[in-house]
C-alpha cells in the first residue's frame, strides 16, 4: 500500500473493511456448502456455481486483503500478474492442442495443423513473454505512484513556465522521472551543463535522509583508501 494511505483514520477504515470481507468470505463458503448439500446438480452446473462463488471470494481477498485496490496504479504488479495469466493460459491451450485431449471436442483425430500451430506457439509464447517482461521491468516511465500526485498538472507547469529556474526543473525531473516529456527532457539537458553544482545541491537537498551513520560509513571506507588514492580523492574534491 502506498504511503499516502498510512493515516490512522484510513487504517481504521481498512479494519472495518477487513471485517466486512471476512464476513463475505464466510458467507460464500456457507452458501457453497448449502447449495451442494441441498441441490442435485450436474457437473457443469456445480462447476459454474462453485467456481463463481470462489471467484467472488478470491476477488475480495485480492482487492481488499492484498491491498490491490490501493496498489492498482502500480502497473508493475498488474503487468506481472497479467503476463503470468496470459502465459499460463497460453501454455494450457498449447498443451490441450498438442495433445488433442480437450474432452468432447467432437473430433476423433487431431488434424496435423494443431500440432504445428502448437509448436509455433511453443516458441512464440515464451519469447513474447520474456520480451514483454524485460520491457516492462526495464522501463523507467512505467510507474504512476500515488505519491506523484497530479503529474499531468506538473508537466503543464513545466511546459508553460519557460522561465522556470533550471534548479526547479531538475528537482521536479528527479522526483518524477515517469512524467518527463521530450520537451522537459530538453529543458533539463539545457539546464544541466551549467548547473551541475546546483543540481548536485538539489540532489543533496532532495535526499535529506542521508543518514549520518551512512556518511560515517563512507568516511570510514575512504579512510581505508591507500595514500595515493587519498590524494587522488582530495585532488578531485
Amino acid at each position, binding site marked *: 500500500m502506498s504511503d499516502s494511505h498510512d493515516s490512522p483514520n484510513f487504517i481504521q477504515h481498512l479494519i472495518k473493511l477487513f471485517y466486512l470481507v*471476512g464476513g463475505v468470505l464466510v458467507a460464500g463458503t456457507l452458501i457453497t456448502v448449502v447449495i451442494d448439500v441441498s441441490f442435485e446438480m450436474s457437473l457443469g452446473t456445480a462447476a459454474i456455481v462453485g467456481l463463481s462463488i470462489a471467484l467472488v471470494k478470491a476477488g475480495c481477498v485480492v482487492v481488499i486483503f492484498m491491498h490491490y485496490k490501493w496498489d492498482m496504479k502500480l502497473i508493475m504488479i498488474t503487468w506481472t500478474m497479467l503476463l503470468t495469466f496470459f502465459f499460463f493460459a497460453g501454455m494450457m491451450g498449447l498443451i490441450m492442442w498438442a495433445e488433442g485431449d480437450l474432452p468432447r471436442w467432437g473430433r476423433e483425430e487431431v488434424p496435423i495443423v494443431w500440432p504445428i500451430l502448437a509448436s509455433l506457439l511453443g516458441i512464440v509464447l515464451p519469447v513474447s513473454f520474456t520480451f514483454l517482461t524485460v520491457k516492462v521491468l526495464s522501463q523507467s516511465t512505467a510507474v504512476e505512484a500515488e505519491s506523484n500526485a497530479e503529474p499531468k498538472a506538473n508537466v503543464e507547469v513545466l511546459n508553460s513556465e519557460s522561465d522556470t529556474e533550471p534548479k526547479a526543473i531538475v528537482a521536479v525531473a528527479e522526483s518524477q522521472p515517469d512524467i518527463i516529456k521530450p520537451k522537459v527532457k530538453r529543458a533539463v539537458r539545457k539546464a544541466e551543463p551549467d548547473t551541475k553544482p546546483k543540481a548536485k545541491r538539489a540532489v543533496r537537498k532532495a535526499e535529506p535522509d542521508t543518514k549520518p551513520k551512512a556518511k560515517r560509513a563512507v568516511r570510514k571506507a575512504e579512510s581505508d583508501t591507500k595514500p595515493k588514492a587519498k590524494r587522488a580523492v582530495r585532488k578531485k574534491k
Partner: protein
Amino acid sequence: MEIPYTVKARPDTGLYNGKLGLWLFLASEVMLFGALFSSYVLLRVGAADGTWSMGLMDIVVGAGNTMVLIASSMFVVLAWAQLKLGNLSGPWLSPRSWGYIQWKWATVACAVLFLVVKWGYEWPSKFVHYDVWFKDSAVLHNKVEEGYHYDGEVHKDELWDEEKDKKFSLARLYLEKEIYVERFFKTYSEEEGGSHTAFNKAWDTGSLALSGHINGYEEAQINVEVTGWKSDSGVSESEADKILVGLGVSGEKGEAKQLRSQGGLLKEKVGYEVAKRAEYQLTKAGFSVALSVVGYESVESHPYFWRTGRINEDIGGKPRVKSILFALDDSHHEKDGETHHKEITINTSDVKRLNSYEPKHSTFFGIYYTITGLHAAHVFGGIIVMLYNLLPIGLATWHRDREQYANRIECFGLFWHFVDLVWIFLFPILYIL
C-alpha cells in the same frame, strides 16, 4: 551495507523491493498451482462415468477448514493494521484492543489448527478407509446381499422401480440409489441415464468396489524352519551360531551348532513380522529358511495402507491374510442399542484388488494428495515465518525500523492471502465438483 528500498518505494517500480519480489514469487506460484488445477480439471472432465471417486470427501470438515483459513487470512491483515497504528501488543483478555502480537498468534493458531485437521484427521482417516474389488461378480452380488439385506424394512417401498418397470433386489436398489450413484456417478448431465447405465454395467461385470473399514483380519501364524547352512557364504560358524542365539536358540549344549548343521524348527507359530525378520537375518548369514503357515490368528485392528499384494503374500503356498472383517459404508444398523456398520467377512482369495484411499487408489486421490500436500507445505512454511517474526530475533527489526517491519509483515500477508486464495479454489474443486 544498507539494503536499499526496504522502506521507501523505488522510483522506477513504485514499490519497495520486497513487495515487488513477493509479487514475482506469487506469479511463479500461480503457474505452479495453475498447472495442477488445470491438470485436475482436465482429468475430471475427461473421466468416464463411474471412474472418478467423488463423494468421498467430507464437505463439512472441508468447509470447517476453509473457515479456519479465512479467519487466519483476516487475522493477518488485522495484525498488519495494528502495526501501522503502532500498536505492537495489547491486553490478551480484551480482543477489541488486541495488538499485532495477539492477532499474529491467532493467525498461527488457525494455521496450526488447519494442519492438525488436515494431517491429523483428514488424511489418516482416508488411510484406513478401503475399497475392495472382487475377482468374480457373483461374490460381489452375494456380499452386497449379505451386507445390505437386513435393511429391507427401511427401503421396502423402493423394491419396485417404476421407471424400468422391473423389480430389483433390495440390496442392489439400495446400493444404486444411496451409495454408488451418489459417490461415483455424479455426472447426470452428460447423458440421460448415463450414470445408471454405467452402474448396471459395473454391477454386471463385478467391477464395482465395496467401500468400508477393515475392523479385523485373520493373519497367518508362521513356523520358521532352518533347512541348511552354506559354509561358503562368507560367514564363520561362530558368527552364524551367534545369529541363531540372537534369534532365541539356547547357547548351551551346542544347540545352535546342532541347528546349523542339521537344521530344524527355529520359531513356532510366530507373527508375520517376527518370521520375516528372522528369515532376513538368517538368509544374510547363509542359512536356508522355510516359512510355513500353521494356522491363522484373529486380530482386531485397523491396518494402514493395506494393499492386494500384502494380504495375498504367499507364505509357503498360503496367503498371509486369510480373511478380513469389512465394515461396510452406509450400512448402519442397531445392535445392542448402538449404531454399527454391518460387518461382512471377505476371503482374501476372492479379492482382486484392495486399496486404502491413498494416492495409489485412483487418479483422484493421486492429484488430491499432491495439491493438498503442496498447499499444506505452504501453510507449514508460513507458520515458521510467522514464528520467526514473533520471536525477539524477528521483533528486533520493529525496534530498529518500524516501517521496515510493517513492510515485512505486509509481504508475509501477501503470501498468506495467496495460500488462502489457493484453498478458496481447492475447496469447490475437490469437495464439490
